[in-house]
């Protein structure tokens, strides 16, 4: 066991005295022996308000510091409606993000040294000058619009504004097309309003919650998890549809183990029962909806008996669950879920869910969906923003009418060498996002990246994208920086402040500072007439009757609602659609050539020899960004690939074994993954948590390697295995659930031999031969070492 030298030196001086002490007294002399860190007392704590940045739920909380200014813990803010004073594991462990010693520490610039591409440590001035110089060059050659921004989180807006001020509005959030754009489109087409975040579901009063495509509890959407827990207490019904026996399935009244890719059939069959058995809310339908007759006629062919053959769910269960929903109406919620880009008909599927909610009368009703309210802060005065010649709209909306935000994949397509059109992308900014893991089709992304003349990455941690960047800028974590006020919607409108608890560690800087300094170098001083971002926020807060000073004390401030939360009885209500009603039959879709009513379409079967790859979340991680967080790494250090025991038997795979995956295109996973043989997964699928298998590694000229040392090479990245993306026609959403893998206990040979291109940029990332070798060594090591340390207790 470790022997602490510090203790030894300290104790040797007093050991003689110690012997003479009686055991009772020795407690009093504790401080003589060792300064043990005592838990922080509530009364000794310095509390600084924060808004968690580990996930988009953005819970407000308090950072607890001791008198030495060390961050000790983060707790929820009791009056915050997102968290109700209880943060999820990621929020509680958020301080690990600050303490992580693998963080990016200084600005880095790509240089060539002895024919090798490495990074050189630079000052902020050097790095920002280089970026400004390159931005100007790109502007001269291609125009400002050719600089694209990919962003995520609260730092994103600083850079989005910077580029907008400068003249480029070519941007996209990978989180949009990869995740919830399809859902938003489905609800906008139906209700004329999207759902935004947090979803305005009144789970606290509902009687029946239907989860189809949502694994609450594993997704740890804090407020909703708490709501569901309260629902369990009240004894409400939960119906969970999932091919996997998810955590929430275990807490549900009814679990429907559906065959993947057939959700639409179930939704249509539910409509069929609800309409034919008159379980719908007739008054509501009559008053607020448009196209009920068309819908009723449309769903006649979709009987539960028909759906049984497709979904493998017994028709009796479909009847039963539909009747449960009908009985609870209008206090029923078909939960919209969040990541809804699955199979390429996702807008239609989410529309089917929206329609179900509509005919059950839950929109705008207690126990259904409430009308959220929020505070809008005025923007700080600035000159008029220049109008670019083209923006993300020209790229995305030509093809997809419902693309109301930049579509990452479309922008990436415009960055490929083969693209010859007018909207070329020649430089990229990545702010707090890692496209290699976040966007499907890794090979295409890499080709797009290599076709860029300049890439900037702003992040707190080294990841794959930092290896492709020309300049890497270390950002301060959310505990060290000031960001926009959180103004998200909720039952009661509220604002929340994130205030820096400590000074930025290392040579990192807050996002606003980086954006502003770069803006000044680009000659945008008119847009940055403030010195400190705090002044901007203070001005904004004062416009709505608060102030920085007040917010620092309370963290979260509530405001009175300006509009009612639910529909009054027989209230006249105008929905923001063409007909002014809830469009069960979408007139827009009809006009644009999309299907006005959702239809079932088969997505094919699993090819023989393969299993469907289902990816999902772990409650203690937000994908790749938290994996290296020391506290959260402690909670889950590697992913487990779930396999049904029947399949495991066929393949001869044992619990805890490390295996490789290969997709039908021949791509072999870079690393291995540990198998969990479990009954919780269907025989035709495997489940893999998203975000693992990190292989980002950069070399710096002082001989150091920057990587996420804890998580590097652990597990398989599901993004890497995705071989086909089904594009949703309405939105451009990227369906990624139609992907398959085969299991291999020995490393398989790739089917196609890839040509090793001599590209300068690829070297920094690391060449493929080395990768193979490392993977082999790693796998051997992991088999030997990890078997010994197996976490699994022998089942007795």
């Amino acid at each position, binding site marked *: 066991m470790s022997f602490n030298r510090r203790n*030894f030196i300290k104790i040797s001086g007093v050991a003689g005295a110690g012997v003479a*002490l009686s*055991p009772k007294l*020795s407690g009093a002399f504790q401080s003589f022996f060792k300064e043990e860190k005592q838990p922080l007392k509530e009364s000794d704590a310095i509390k600084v308000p924060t808004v968690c940045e580990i996930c988009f739920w953005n819970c407000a909380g308090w950072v607890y510091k001791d008198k030495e200014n060390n961050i000790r813990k983060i707790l929820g803010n009791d009056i915050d409606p997102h968290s109700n004073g209880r943060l999820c594991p990621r929020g509680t462990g958020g301080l690990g993000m600050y303490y992580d010693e693998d963080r990016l520490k200084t600005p880095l610039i790509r240089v060539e040294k002895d024919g090798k591409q490495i990074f050189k440590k630079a000052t902020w001035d050097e790095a920002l000058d280089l970026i400004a110089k390159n931005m100007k060059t790109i502007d001269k050659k291609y125009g400002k619009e050719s600089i694209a921004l990919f962003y995520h989180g609260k730092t994103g807006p600083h850079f989005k504004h910077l580029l907008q001020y400068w003249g480029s509005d070519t941007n996209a959030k990978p989180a949009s097309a990869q995740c919830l754009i399809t859902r938003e489109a489905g609800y906008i087409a139906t209700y004329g309003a999207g759902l935004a975040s947090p979803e305005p579901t009144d789970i606290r009063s509902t009687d029946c919650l239907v989860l189809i495509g949502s694994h609450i509890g594993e997704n740890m959407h804090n407020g909703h998890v708490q709501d569901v827990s309260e629902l369990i207490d009240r004894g409400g019904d939960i119906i969970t549809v999932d091919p996997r026996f998810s955590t929430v399935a275990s807490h549900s009244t009814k679990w429907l183990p559906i065959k993947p890719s057939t959700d639409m059939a179930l939704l249509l069959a539910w409509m069929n029962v609800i309409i034919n058995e008159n379980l719908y809310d007739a008054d509501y339908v009559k008053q607020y909806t448009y196209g009920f007759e068309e819908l009723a006629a449309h769903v006649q062919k979709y009987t539960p008996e028909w759906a049984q053959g497709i979904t493998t769910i017994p028709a009796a269960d479909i009847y039963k669950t539909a009747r449960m929903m009908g009985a609870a109406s209008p206090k029923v919620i078909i939960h919209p879920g969040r990541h809804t880009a699955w199979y390429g008909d996702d807008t239609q599927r989410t529309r089917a869910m929206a329609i179900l909610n509509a005919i059950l009368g839950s929109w705008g009703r207690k126990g259904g969906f409430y009308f959220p309210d929020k505070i809008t802060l005025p923007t700080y005065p600035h000159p008029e923003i220049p109008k670019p010649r083209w923006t993300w709209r020209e790229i995305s909306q030509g093809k997809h009418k419902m693309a109301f935000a930049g579509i990452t994949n479309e922008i990436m397509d415009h960055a490929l060498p083969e693209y010859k059109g007018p909207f070329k992308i020649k430089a990229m900014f990545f702010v707090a996002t890692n496209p290699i893991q976040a966007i499907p089709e890794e090979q295409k992304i890499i080709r797009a990246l290599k076709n860029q003349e300049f890439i900037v990455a702003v992040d707190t941690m080294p990841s794959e994208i930092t290896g492709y960047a020309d300049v890497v800028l270390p950002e301060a974590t959310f505990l060290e920086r000031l960001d926009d006020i959180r103004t998200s919607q909720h039952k009661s409108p509220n604002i929340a402040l994130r205030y820096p608890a400590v000074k930025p560690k290392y040579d990192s800087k807050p996002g606003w500072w980086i954006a502003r300094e770069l803006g000044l170098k680009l000659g945008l001083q008119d847009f940055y007439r403030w010195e400190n971002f705090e002044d901007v926020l203070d001005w904004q807060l004062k416009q709505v009757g608060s102030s920085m000073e007040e917010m620092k004390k309370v963290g979260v401030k509530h405001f009175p609602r300006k509009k009612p939360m639910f529909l009054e009885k027989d209230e006249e209500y105008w929905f923001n659609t063409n007909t002014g009603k809830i469009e069960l039959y979408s007139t827009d879709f009809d006009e644009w050539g999309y299907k006005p009513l959702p239809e079932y379409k088969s997505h094919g079967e699993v090819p023989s020899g393969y299993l469907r790859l289902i990816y999902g979340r772990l409650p203690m991680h937000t994908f790749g960004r938290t994996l290296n967080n020391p506290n959260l790494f402690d909670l*889950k250090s590697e992913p487990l690939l779930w396999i049904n025991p029947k399949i495991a038997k066929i393949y001869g795979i044992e619990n805890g074994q490390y295996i490789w995956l290969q997709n039908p295109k021949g791509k072999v996973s870079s690393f291995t993954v540990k198998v*969990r043989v479990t009954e919780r997964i269907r025989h035709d699928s495997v489940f893999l948590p998203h975000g693992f298998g990190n292989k980002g590694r950069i070399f710096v000229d002082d001989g150091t390697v920057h990587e996420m040392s804890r998580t590097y090479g652990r597990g398989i990245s599901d993004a890497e295995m995705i071989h086909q993306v089904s594009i949703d026609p309405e939105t451009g959403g990227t369906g990624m659930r139609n992907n398959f893998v085969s299991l291999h206990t020995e490393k398989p040979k790739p089917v196609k031999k890839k040509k090793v291109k001599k590209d300068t940029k690829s070297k920094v990332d690391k060449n493929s031969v080395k990768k193979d070798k490392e993977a082999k060594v790693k796998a051997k090591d992991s088999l030997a070492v990890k078997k010994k340390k*197996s*976490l*699994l207790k022998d089942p*007795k």
Partner: protein
Amino acid sequence: MEEQLLVNTRDIYGLYPHVHVWGFPIAAYLFLGGLAAGILLFATIYYLRGKADEMPFTVKIAPIFTFLIIMVGLVLLVYDLHHKLYVWQLFMTFRIESPMSWGAWTLVGVSVFSLLWPLSYIDDIEAYLHERNWRRLDGVTNFIRKFIHKWKIPHFIILMFRKYRTFFAYILLILSVILGIYTGILLSAFNAHPLWNNSILGPLFLVSGVSTGSAFVMWLSNNKKERALMSTIDMVLIAVELFFIVHMIMGMQAGPEAYKQAAHLFLGGEFTVMFWVVFVGFGLVLPFILEAMEFKGFHIHPAVPALLVLMGGLVFRIIMVNAGQISEYPF
């Protein structure tokens, strides 16, 4: 199918998949403790029976080793502690409930007496050595004698000890029995481990300890009579040990599930071969046969069965320490 797994990574030293914080040092410590107890037991018993001069090795010489054996054991024990610098805390309190506490105190007592015992015999020891023409150690014995006579207090203590040797022999006899039992009870006090948690283990360890003690004397004694006596005693002890082992396993087999599983470790489980072949076969039955053969007149070097018994004693403790930690209540 039943499945049970840890959600969070809890890769803590010695906890998973089974508790394993004790290893060879503790097994060796228990072995040495039992050995020392056995040697002292014979020394005091035969002294009290007035056979000091008949059996000089048993009574006068063998105890010299006990002090060294105990010291080696203590070093191993302290080595195995994780908070070594606080070891003095052991002697700040006396806790009757904790075998480790009274065991530690017993060890102190035994080590003091096992040091005084041979010191008080220093002249006899020298005579014993001279008898066998072993003069190489004269320097040492002279030094010790000088040391004792130089100061008043040690001299006084030794004189007192000689004077009231019978009284001290009784105390040492009791202490050595306690020490022997302690090495067994130490393990059986842990109710988290069904294999350890049975009432036979204490006596079994005591008998095994005494048996190793007799084997030790048998091995090093030059006196034929002594050897023959020890050999006989050892045979009896081995028989008792075998009886206890059968008893223990039968008791566990008749117990609740956790105890059956504990017994299974020896009945087809991980430790079956180690236990039955190495310990019972080579550590008990074989020396028994060899001793019986010698008794019948076959010439067998006494070191062979003695070393086998000693090896068996050590292996037995290694098995018990390791297997015991594997034996847990099923979750």
